[in-house]
């Protein structure tokens, strides 16, 4: 029995019951009963352990050890939680005009944000409970009811996060930048929850980042629900480049209707512990899901990707390409599930996971998992774990490129198609530079 884990669970449950009245006051009865059901599930299941297949390679033991502060969504920011624009400037993609929604320890920061309600709603879930109760009731927790205890915990405590609701045939004119900061003088555990609704024929782009501003341990447990209507398109870039004492567990659920497109880039280059669950349900004919991942591990970092695509309707396609480069003592996990349901004829599913291991102490566990119940489908998958190509390295060095730069260039080349689909050249450059820096080279001359 892990005492600390049990204690954290009890503290979280107490936190919910203490605050239930406040949660209830702010939202409808239906939502309150969903919260309660979720918390009860969390209480009965507890944190997942490595005995469970889904968490076999990824232990939460260290993550549940610190005595975290649980910031109350209803309390104003404390002295040690105050941040201003200068603290966050470096985390913004500044050269692209964006809507901006900023949260600090699970509270919305209006003075750091630029939201809109003009043609569509790009704002905060915290305000939507009261302002748009019908929308929230129709969409909140629709995709997450059956998920595991971390998701249930989040549903129970869900309060703040990005809220996006785009009406029919509307194109959001600029990207939405959403930033979740953790800060304070103690270890902190935050829940963030986003609800994104794209009506028929609409489109939007989201650039998301979680970042810690404190030297203390932080853990953010994020859950996202995305409803992508027919012919709608979402492009979502997740930038996981957090501080070395910051951990993230994120569960993102995407529901796609007819002929919709969802593109998700997950760039995991920082942080201590990252667990991503990214699930797509292709429920309408002709829906297309594209997901790209790039994980760069060093020190003792862990990057775990669990992806799942449910091909439910016919004629849908999914394309998945995840790249990982692991150095030092870092570890990677990739588990890619593709379920082709019985009616999903003419499914096209592609999955690829390629890894480079740079040190003897680094490791990757990769597992494709395909279950196909329809007969007329095209599925392919592959995974590789290897080292840098010696011949390629010699070729570069023979041209005068020093070994460190040559290695970095090869890694950048390996990583390249994980960011190739990102539309904004300046964002792509920023990402390449970030990657270059992580690999220990200045790439500005070779870009």
């Amino acid at each position, binding site marked *: 029995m892990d005492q600390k884990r049990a204690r954290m669970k009890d503290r979280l449950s107490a936190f919910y019951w203490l605050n239930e009245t406040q949660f209830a006051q702010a939202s409808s009865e239906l939502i309150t009963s969903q919260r309660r059901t979720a918390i009860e599930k969390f209480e009965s299941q507890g944190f997942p352990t490595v005995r469970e297949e889904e968490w076999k390679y990824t232990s939460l033991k260290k993550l549940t050890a610190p005595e975290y502060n649980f910031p109350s969504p209803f309390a104003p920011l404390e002295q040690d939680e105050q941040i201003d624009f200068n603290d966050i400037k470096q985390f913004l993609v500044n050269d692209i005009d964006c809507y901006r929604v900023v949260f600090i320890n699970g509270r919305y920061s209006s003075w750091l944000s630029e939201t809109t309600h003009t043609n569509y709603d790009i704002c905060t879930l915290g305000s939507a409970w009261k302002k748009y109760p019908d929308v929230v009731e129709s969409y909140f927790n629709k995709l997450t009811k059956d998920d595991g205890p971390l998701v249930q915990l989040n549903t129970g405590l869900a309060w703040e996060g990005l809220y996006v609701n785009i009406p029919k045939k509307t194109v959001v004119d600029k990207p939405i930048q959403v930033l979740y900061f953790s800060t304070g003088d103690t270890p902190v555990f935050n829940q963030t929850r986003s609800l994104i609704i794209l009506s028929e024929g609409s489109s939007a782009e989201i650039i998301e980042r979680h970042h810690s501003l404190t030297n203390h341990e932080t853990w953010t447990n994020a859950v996202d629900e995305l409803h992508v209507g027919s012919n709608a398109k979402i492009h979502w870039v997740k930038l996981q480049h957090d501080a070395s004492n910051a951990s993230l567990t994120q569960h993102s659920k995407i529901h796609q209707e007819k002929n919709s497109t969802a593109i998700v880039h997950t760039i995991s280059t920082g942080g201590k512990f990252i667990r991503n669950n990214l699930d797509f349900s292709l429920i309408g004919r002709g829906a297309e899901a594209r997901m790209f991942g790039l994980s760069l591990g060093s020190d003792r970092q862990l990057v775990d990707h669990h992806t799942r695509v449910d091909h439910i309707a016919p004629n849908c396609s999914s394309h998945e390409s995840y790249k990982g480069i692991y150095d030092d003592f870092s570890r990677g996990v990739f588990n890619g599930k593709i379920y082709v349901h019985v009616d999903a004829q003419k499914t096209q599913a592609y999955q690829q996971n390629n890894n480079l291991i740079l040190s003897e102490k680094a490791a990757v566990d990769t597992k494709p998992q395909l279950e196909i119940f329809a007969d007329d489908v095209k599925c392919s998958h592959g995974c590789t774990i290897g080292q840098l*190509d*010696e*011949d*390629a390295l*010699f*070729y*570069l*060095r*023979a*041209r*005068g*490129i*020093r*070994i460190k*730069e*040559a290695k970095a*260039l*090869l890694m*950048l*080349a*390996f*990583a*390249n*198609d994980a960011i190739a689909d990102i539309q904004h050249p300046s964002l792509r450059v920023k990402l390449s530079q970030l990657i270059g820096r992580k690999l220990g080279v200045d790439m500005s*001359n*070779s*870009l």
Partner: protein
Amino acid sequence: MLEIVNLHASIDNKVILNGINLKINLGEVHAIMGPNGSGKSTLSNVIAGHDGYDIISGDILFDGESVLDFSPEKRAHLGLFLSFQYPVEIPGITVSNFIRTALNEIRKAKGEEPLGASPMLKMMREKMGVLEMDKGFLSRSLNEGFSGGEKKRNEIFQMAMLEPKMAILDETDSGLDIDALRIVANGVNSLRSNRNTFIIITHYQRLLDYIVPDFVHVLFNGKIVKSGDKELAIELEKRGYDWIKKEQE
């Protein structure tokens, strides 16, 4: 400029270079010919600093200085260039990025400022013009999906950009049709001067009609068994290598 002294080298305990002696002065063009498997590519790789070979004995001197302990990049900084027999395909690096990085690394090693984007591009256009290459080349992934001829032309393009003091062309002619051969040879000839040298490795006399060598050497079983002038190449073309093999027995 380059001096190879009694060089013995092996790979996996198999001796491949068996006492090579070769001296090359600035301004000279040397051709090395020889049957398959005689050690021509091994010699090129060893000169370029490939660390997969064990140097058993002997030395390689560059301007009088032993380079055996030098990394491949350091040798490149000193002005060595190897046009690979089999250039490596590297998806994800464009030709222009690659060349820009290489050129600026060499400049940096010489203590020069990096060349900016626009003079670089201008220089690339110029050299590509000489080699009759299409501009689209620059944005393609390095050697990925290139035809044999395109790969070789790309090697010569790199050579033209990096302006080495000593270039080794390892079977640059194989895979080239006659037009491409002429273009590549023109490229090489336009770079020839009394400040650089070339080693042309080839099976065929053909290329040597265009790039006329000062010396021709025959490599056989890891040893230079015969040296002469361009007449030797013509003789080899006529008679093949069998008479050389016989002479050795």
